[in-house]
C-alpha cells in the first residue's frame, strides 16, 4: 500500500524543520499572528452521530457536537476559518427527504466560511444544488468547474480572499472529473478543466497579484490512487505546483493518521490533509506568523 509507505516516510519525525528553521524567541507579542484553520470533508448528510451499535464508528460524529468543538476553538482563537472540501450531500435519508436544506442550514449555523463542491453535491442535479443555495450563508469556490452555461454561473467563484488578523488568505476550490462518475444529466453543462493548469494560474494570481500570504486549496480530487497513480490527486497536485500552503482534500474518504508533508515543485514543504468522512473528525491546522525574528532564519517549522 503506497499510501502507508508515504505516511511512514514522514512518520518517524513528528516535527520537521524546514531550511534550518531555528526558532528564536520573539521579543514582542504584537507582531505575532495566529490563524487557525478547521476543516471537514465528505460529511455526507451525517447530521446525527453514529449509533451506539455501529461496528466502526459507534457514537462518533454528529453536527451538534461538531458545533461545540468549533465554538471552543473560536473562543481560543477568534481568527479561525472553517472550511469544507465537498460531498456535503448524500448518505443519510436526511438528504433523500430534505434535499440538503438541513445540511446547509447547519453549516451556516456553524459559520462555515468556504466550501467546495464534491461529485455527490450534484446528486439532485445542479438544479437541486442551486435550489438549496439560499440556505447556505457561506461561499462555494471551484476553479476548475466552468459553470458559465449552468444555473451556478456567478454563484460559484474560483476563489475567495479572506483577511484575518491582517493576514490575507486565498482559498480556491478544485473538483473531480465528473465524466464517468456523475451522470451528465445531473451536472449538465458544467465543464471540467485541468486541475494543474488551473492551479498554476490561480496560485500565481493569488500570490503575485493579490499578495496572499496564505494559500489554501479545497480539493475534491482525492488523496491518491495507488492503482492509477497517473490520475490527478492531491499528492500529485502538491508535487506538480507551487505557492500552495495547504491542500484540504476529500473524495477518497481517507482517514490520514496525520497530515502529509509534501515537497512541491520548488522543493518547499507544504501540507496535504484529509479527515476521513461523515464528520467523524475535524482537522485543525494552526499557522503562526512572525514579523520580527532573525532575517536569516526564514524557515517554517511544521509539527504534525
Amino acid at each position: 500500500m503506497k499510501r502507508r509507505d508515504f505516511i511512514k516516510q514522514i512518520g518517524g519525525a513528528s516535527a520537521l524543520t524546514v531550511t534550518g528553521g531555528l526558532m528564536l524567541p520573539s521579543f514582542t507579542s504584537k507582531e505575532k499572528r495566529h490563524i487557525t484553520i478547521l476543516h471537514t470533508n465528505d460529511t455526507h448528510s451525517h447530521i446525527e452521530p453514529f449509533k451506539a451499535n455501529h461496528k466502526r464508528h459507534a457514537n462518533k460524529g454528529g453536527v451538534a457536537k461538531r458545533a461545540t468543538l468549533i465554538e471552543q476553538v473560536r473562543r481560543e482563537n477568534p481568527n479561525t476559518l472553517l472550511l469544507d472540501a465537498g460531498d456535503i450531500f448524500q448518505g443519510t435519508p436526511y438528504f433523500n427527504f430534505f434535499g440538503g436544506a438541513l445540511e446547509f442550514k447547519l453549516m451556516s449555523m456553524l459559520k462555515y466560511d468556504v466550501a467546495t463542491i464534491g461529485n455527490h453535491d450534484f446528486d439532485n442535479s445542479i438544479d437541486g444544488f442551486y435550489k438549496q443555495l439560499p440556505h447556505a450563508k457561506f461561499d462555494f469556490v471551484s476553479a476548475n468547474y466552468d459553470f458559465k452555461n449552468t444555473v451556478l454561473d456567478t454563484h460559484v467563484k474560483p476563489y475567495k480572499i479572506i483577511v484575518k488578523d491582517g493576514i490575507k488568505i486565498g482559498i480556491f476550490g478544485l473538483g473531480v472529473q465528473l465524466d464517468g462518475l456523475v451522470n451528465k444529466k445531473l451536472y449538465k453543462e458544467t465543464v471540467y478543466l485541468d486541475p494543474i493548469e488551473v492551479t498554476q494560474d490561480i496560485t500565481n494570481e493569488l500570490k503575485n497579484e493579490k499578495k496572499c500570504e496564505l494559500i489554501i486549496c479545497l480539493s475534491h480530487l482525492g488523496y491518491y490512487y495507488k492503482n492509477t497513480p497517473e490520475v490527478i490527486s492531491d499528492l500529485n497536485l502538491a508535487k506538480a505546483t507551487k505557492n500552495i500552503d495547504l491542500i484540504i482534500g476529500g473524495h477518497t474518504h481517507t482517514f490520514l493518521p496525520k497530515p502529509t508533508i509534501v515537497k512541491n515543485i520548488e522543493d518547499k514543504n507544504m501540507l496535504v490533509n484529509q479527515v476521513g468522512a461523515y464528520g467523524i473528525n475535524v482537522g485543525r491546522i494552526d499557522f503562526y506568523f512572525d514579523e520580527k525574528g532573525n532575517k536569516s532564519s526564514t524557515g517554517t517549522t511544521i509539527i504534525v
Partner: protein
Amino acid sequence: MKKIFYAICLIFMVISCKKTDAKLTKIIAKTIEIDSTIQPSVALKTVISPYKEKLAAKMQKVLSYSSEELNKKDSVRQSLVGNLMADLSIEMVSPLFNKKTNETIDFVMFNYGGIRAIIPKGEVAVERAFKIMPFENELVVVELTGEKIKELISYFINNKKAHPLSKNVQLTIASGNYDLKINNVPFDSKKTYRVLTSDYLQSGGDRMTFFKDPVKLTKLNYKFRDVIIDYFKEVDTLKSTIDNRIIVK
C-alpha cells in the same frame, strides 16, 4: 483642526493598509475526533429536532407486509430476500426497459453482500428499503456475449455465495460441469443476453469483471432502493421462496 484630524486619519489608514511583513514561522496540524465526550450544542439540536421527527414519520410509513421472515440464509445458493430482490427488480424494470429499447431483459444478477438487511415478519416500512439498500446504486441493463455469460456462471459457481439471480435462470450445478437454461431455453454461447444489475457491479464491483465492457450498456436512472420502495407500495404481502432456479447435484 479638522485638517489635522483628517491628516492623522489618512496616515493611520495608510499604515493600516500596509501589507503585513508576516513570515510563516510555524505550522501545527492535528486531527480532532468528534466523540462522545463532546456535549452537543443545544442550539443545533433545536434546529435538527423537527427534521428528525418528520424524517422518522416518513421512514416509519408502512408500505407492505411480510407474513414470514425473508432472511439471507444461504440455501442452495439462494436466499429468500435475495430471490425477492432479483425477482421484483425484473418485474418493476422490464416494462420500462421494453418501452425504452424495444428489447427484453433476460435475467437479473446482484451480489449477495450488496443486500444489506433481511425483511422481518410483519409490517414493512420505508425504512426497510433503506436498510436493505443504503447505497445510491442505480440499475443498468448490460448486454453480454455468450462468453461473458459463461464467465458470469463460473463466477457464481466458484464464488460459492448466494448471489441473487432472478427466476429466469435455471442452473444445475454438478461436479465439473453445469446445465444452464435461461427462460426455459438452453443457453446458447453464440447469442447475447441482457442482464439487469446495479451500476456498482457493472463497474467491476465485487470483482464481477464480466460486466465491464459489455456489448451494450443501458442506464435506467432508477435507483435500486426506489425500485424496492415502488414494489413495496404496489404489493400487499411480500412473498419469496427457495425454488429450483439453482439446483446443486
